[in-house]
């Protein structure tokens, strides 16, 4: 018996130690570039797919062939309308797919074009008959950065790009024309004084009110997300190491990331209503999940929260920090798992050590900063019906709490506030107010923005939040959907492996990888923290000069005008969210049925990756951008009007800032369509 075990052990050792090549067939460059077929008048484009990009190695037109040397391959393929192209594709490493928006068949099942290593695959001839910019994408999961494996094809003349540029100028011009006619307290023609008391709307109002005043409402809304959150942790640590097959990545960084932008626009901080992160801390400190408990009996050391943290600096910088590792965060489940574990641990401590309010949410949470910042461009707000009632009502239950509701955990005065920034929409004030004076309002985008901006003294934190978000929208678009592989690779530190907890060691970067990452971090942080703010400051200075205003400092103009990025940034992110969800919708839906990426199919919602009309994406993104631009210019005017109290001066300042916003818009247009 023992000899038999020995035989087996040695056999195993042998099998594992000897790495006998199983499939050594590699396509030689010669074999590949030497094209024996007759393709008529079609051009031949030699593409090498690699982790994680497409390199155009050579282009053959008739008997003429241009071979691009290593390192100087074009990132973008340019063809003329009507060109017939044959792609000769090989893989430089593992198996990839090949999918061109609007030209190759759907990427489902056997229709998929597969590029297996060692084989030459011919695609086409394809006749490029629709001018515009489209994307070449990988359609077979080939590693962690697979969803980012995209390249651009421009079918010239790129008329759509010219149209879009012209529209950008037109919209900017029209908006300026509109503001030149001194529209007071209006946003794109809609009065900013009008709003709708949602709780007074027939049928819906009373139902909504009953629900929100019910003590269990908050808990009920958090619970499903708590469950989802736990699945995120489980999948992040133990699930499939490849991001797009893992719940933690698919649901957080595709579904949530996109959905939250829409939530902001339509529901302000609605995400924070249903967010499970601070729930444990809050429940433990209060010693209640459901009912109201006297604050004197809470479990908390009650230390004073440091004053220096009462701003969104940490939130803003942690959002930037997260963005610096975004190529890892959104592709490696374990990185997301660790981040989320941290995000649930910190509020636990802050609640138990400091006064048990939403201090974590107000100052630390990386999502807080931008959700709060942009929520001032939301059409939704929690407000008092009549402020004078609040002012006269001394007990102030909305601050101090009552037997029916807690005093505001976000440490604001709900009855008197007129900005959304720090209103976490827990609706405790709806429950505590004995006069029924609190309600939900629908209003025009940016109702309070001009006043908030004009009053912003020294609010550098919010200004920089705006710059960070605005510039990062561009970087995200470039990293997720841009053709420039080096940007992704620098951020990714050149690592080709996915990772869960067991394989976290695979993420050890090389020295060169680290070096590249520093370069990438420097570029991103430099543009977000220094570059764009500096340009913005320059324009503010010009605006002041042109307005001929001496009573107000450039600094104040700079701070106040930065609030135009509240709607502008939000709409850029909406544009980004659109492409994220329309291209990758299949991943999150599948993840609900197979959260760990282990081949389960619990709810029967398994779908293959198959983008929804990706060729029209730029047409959907463009209007969002243009709306954002118009809002930015109009907001600038309103702010200037509030600050300078003079139409002519305000208009001239708006003109200067409008030029900057138009230029920024053109950059985005160029990225999505140019």
């Amino acid at each position: 018996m023992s000899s038999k075990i020995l035989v087996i052990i040695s056999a195993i050792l042998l099998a594992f130690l000897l790495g006998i090549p199983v499939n050594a067939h590699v396509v030689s460059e010669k074999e590949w570039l030497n094209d024996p077929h007759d393709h008529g008048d079609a051009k031949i484009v030699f593409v090498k797919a690699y982790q994680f990009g497409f390199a155009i190695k050579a282009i053959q037109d008739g008997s003429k062939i241009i071979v691009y040397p290593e390192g100087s391959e074009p990132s973008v393929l340019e063809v003329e309308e009507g060109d017939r192209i044959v792609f000769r594709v090989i893989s430089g490493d593992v198996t990839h797919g090949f999918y061109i928006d609007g030209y190759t068949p759907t990427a489902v099942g056997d229709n998929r074009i597969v590029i297996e290593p060692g084989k030459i695959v011919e695609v086409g001839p394809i006749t490029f008959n629709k001018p515009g910019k489209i994307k070449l994408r990988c359609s077979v999961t080939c590693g962690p950065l697979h969803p980012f494996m995209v390249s651009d094809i421009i079918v010239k003349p790129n008329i759509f790009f010219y149209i879009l540029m012209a529209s950008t100028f037109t919209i900017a011009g029209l908006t300026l024309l509109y503001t030149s006619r001194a529209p007071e307290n209006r946003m794109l023609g809609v009065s900013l004084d009008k709003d709708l008391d949602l709780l007074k709307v027939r049928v819906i109002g009373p139902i909504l009110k009953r629900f929100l005043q019910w003590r269990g409402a908050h808990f009920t809304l958090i619970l499903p997300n708590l469950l989802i959150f736990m699945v995120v942790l489980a999948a992040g640590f133990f699930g499939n190491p490849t991001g797009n097959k893992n719940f933690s990545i698919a649901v957080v960084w595709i579904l949530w990331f996109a959905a939250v932008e829409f939530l902001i626009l339509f529901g302000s901080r609605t995400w924070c209503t249903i967010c499970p992160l601070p729930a444990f801390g809050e429940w433990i400190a209060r010693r209640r999940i459901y009912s109201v408990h006297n604050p004197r009996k809470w479990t908390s050391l009650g230390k004073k929260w440091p004053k220096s943290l009462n701003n969104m600096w940490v939130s803003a910088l942690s959002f930037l920090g997260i963005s610096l590792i975004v190529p890892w965060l959104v592709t490696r489940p374990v990185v997301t798992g660790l981040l989320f574990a941290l995000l649930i641990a910190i509020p636990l401590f802050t609640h138990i050590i400091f006064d048990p309010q939403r201090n974590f949410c107000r100052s630390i949470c990386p999502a807080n900063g931008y959700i709060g910042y942009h929520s001032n461009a939301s059409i939704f707000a929690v407000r008092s019906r009549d402020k004078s009632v609040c002012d006269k009502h001394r007990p102030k239950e909305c601050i101090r709490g009552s037997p029916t509701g807690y005093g505001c955990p976000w440490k604001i005065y709900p009855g008197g506030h007129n900005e959304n920034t720090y209103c976490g929409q827990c609706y405790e004030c709806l429950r505590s107010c004995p006069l029924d004076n609190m309600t939900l309002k629908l209003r025009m985008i940016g109702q309070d923005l001009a006043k908030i901006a004009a009053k912003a003294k020294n609010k550098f934190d919010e200004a920089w939040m705006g710059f960070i978000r605005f510039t990062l929208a561009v970087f995200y678009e470039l990293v997720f959907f841009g053709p420039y592989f080096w940007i992704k690779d620098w951020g990714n530190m050149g690592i080709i492996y996915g990772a869960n907890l067991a394989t976290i060691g695979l993420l050890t970067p090389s020295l060169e990888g680290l070096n590249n990452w520093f370069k990438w971090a420097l570029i991103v942080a430099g543009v977000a923290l220094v570059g764009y703010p500096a340009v913005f400051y320059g324009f503010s200075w010009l605006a002041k000069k042109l307005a001929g205003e001496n009573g107000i400092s450039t600094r104040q103009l700079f701070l106040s005008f930065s609030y135009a990025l509240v709607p502008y940034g939000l709409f850029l992110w909406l544009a980004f969210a659109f492409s994220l969800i329309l291209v990758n919708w299949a991943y999150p839906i599948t993840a609900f049925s197979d959260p760990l990426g282990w081949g389960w199919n619990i709810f029967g919602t398994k779908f293959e990756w198959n983008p929804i009309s990706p060729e029209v994406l730029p047409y959907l993104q463009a209007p969002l951008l243009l709306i954002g631009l118009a809002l930015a210019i109009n907001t600038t005017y309103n702010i200037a009007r509030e600050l300078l109290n003079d139409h002519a001066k305000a208009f001239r300042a708006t003109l200067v800032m409008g030029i900057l916003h138009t230029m920024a818009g053109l950059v985005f247009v160029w990225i999505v369509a140019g």
Partner: protein
Amino acid sequence: MSRKGIVLFEGLALMLVVLSVTAIFLPMWDDVLNPEKKEPKTIVIRAQVKEAGGFEPSVIKVKKGEKVRIVVEGMDVTHGFTIKSLGVDLGEIKPGEKKAFEFVADKEGVYVFKCTIMCSPMHNFMKGVIIVEGE
């Protein structure tokens, strides 16, 4: 709210919270939730690059005379699967794809299986064995 009411509601809420927290143990449910494993005598081999563990499991023991069904599931990138000595070749297995075969272990011995498609720098080491043991 009365004391009793508070205890009741808080207890109920706490139960629900505890229930959702147990979702963290989801990985333990593989045997129940994996449609493949519901069938008798099925072994699921998960294929991922060797750097991340290779075939899991990579050592499979079966009793002589047993009939087993083996499902190979692609995890990260496209792999292949072959057992030369049994004449099994499943071709390419894309991530998320599953391919299966059945075999009757009528001869004692060690059967080596390998990945057939270049999948990572350590692809050549991506192997495993099926050991057929006598009684």
